[in-house]
């Protein structure tokens, strides 16, 4: 059932990210919707589940995007490493910590993308609107992080209650 939850949630987020989000005008465009899911998994779920989700969604996003192959795997891997490391020192219920972790995850994604374009790609290049897009994504992250993480937590507990209930019955 765990696998089903991650496949359905991941697929839902990827499809929304590739069909609806690109049509939203840039000033209102928020962060990549899959990233908060990885942050949630890294903070609230066991490491083995995190590794599976990172591999599944990282490969899926890498293959759907025109970005260099492996860039989403990189971002999600380091978010998982960071989240797993930080959760040893902070309580996952701490609201401020969750907000900071969320914003750091979104910031890491932007840094890796821009860093790859600016340093590693053969045509060193930084998009003109890079700062604008990155700042806009961080503001969206600050504003929406408690709601988004709460949605994931509630969905997961609802899923667990439905399937553990039916299993028991």
């Amino acid at each position, binding site marked *: 059932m765990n696998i089903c939850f991650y496949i359905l949630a991941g697929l839902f987020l990827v*499809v929304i990210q590739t069909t609806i989000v*690109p*049509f939203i005008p840039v000033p209102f465009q928020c962060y990549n919707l899959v990233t908060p899911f990885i942050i949630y998994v890294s903070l609230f779920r066991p490491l083995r589940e995190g590794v599976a989700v990172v591999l599944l969604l990282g490969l899926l996003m890498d293959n*759907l995007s*025109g*970005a*260099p192959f*492996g860039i989403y795997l990189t971002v999600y891997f380091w978010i998982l490493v960071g989240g797993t490391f930080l959760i040893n020192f902070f309580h996952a219920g701490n609201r401020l910590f969750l907000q900071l972790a969320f914003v750091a995850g979104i910031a890491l994604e932007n840094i890796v993308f821009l860093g790859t374009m600016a340093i590693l*790609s053969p045509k060193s290049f*930084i998009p003109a609107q890079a700062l604008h897009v990155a700042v806009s994504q961080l503001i969206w992250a600050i504003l929406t992080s408690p709601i988004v993480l709460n949605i994931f937590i509630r969905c997961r507990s609802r899923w667990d209650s439905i399937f553990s209930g039916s299993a028991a019955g």
Partner: protein
Amino acid sequence: MLSKKMVLLIGVIFLITFNMIFLSVTSRRNATDGSGSTALYIVSPFQKALTRSIGFVKDIWRHYFYLSSVSMENDRLRKELSFAAEKNNRLVEAELSNARLRNLLKFTEKTEGPLIAAEIIGKDPTSWHKTITIDKGSDDGVEKGDAVVSPEGVVGQVTDVASHYAKALLLIDHNSAVDALIQNSRARGVVHGESSGQCALKYVLRKHEIQTGDTVISSGLDGIFQKGLRVGVVSGVVKNSSGMFQVVTVKPFVDFETLEEVFVMARIKADEKEDG
């Protein structure tokens, strides 16, 4: 002996270095290892279903609730206008070719390959890169490297193909390159995508006189796009005091924000070219 912390630190440094080398290698090649078609196969049916549903709702809104007849007439006129613009461009191009080749004994007609109509069902998950997913794949005759066009002009190039879906790199992506000509002056260059949604015509020699408003067309020399396809219009020209080339900015004819349907053109193959 190394302490536990030291081992951890070395491990992290090794991972970061390995990661950077890996990304450096993959950023030098556009193609994926073939697993791209699997991802398209898994995700695209859902993208198609959602895009169709959104399109259905949009159509109801546009055609039934929002001045139905005006909207439909507008759709028809826009389509007619884009076809007329393309036809006009072909006539201008034919006229110029005729004038240039009048003294030649043989005139070779442009090769017209079959067009495959496709619908855009998904876009790139990140705003930093510009790709689209279309609902036609290898079973429909689409091949990796095929040109993607619309009645307005050049759209991009197919980079990944699954059986019923394909991924295309757009003209405005910074990895995209199209060999092109200025229609009037015949100055040659390479159109590269820029982040701003515009393009740059690079490697145009300073000696050519280029004006804002000049039409840029494909040269056909890249073996991907047929000669004479509309690429864009010159929106700016800068001649620096030094250097061999001038900086030419090109605004694509295609509006990539509102683009919904495209055509895939079979690639000009070397043997076909020789036969032609």
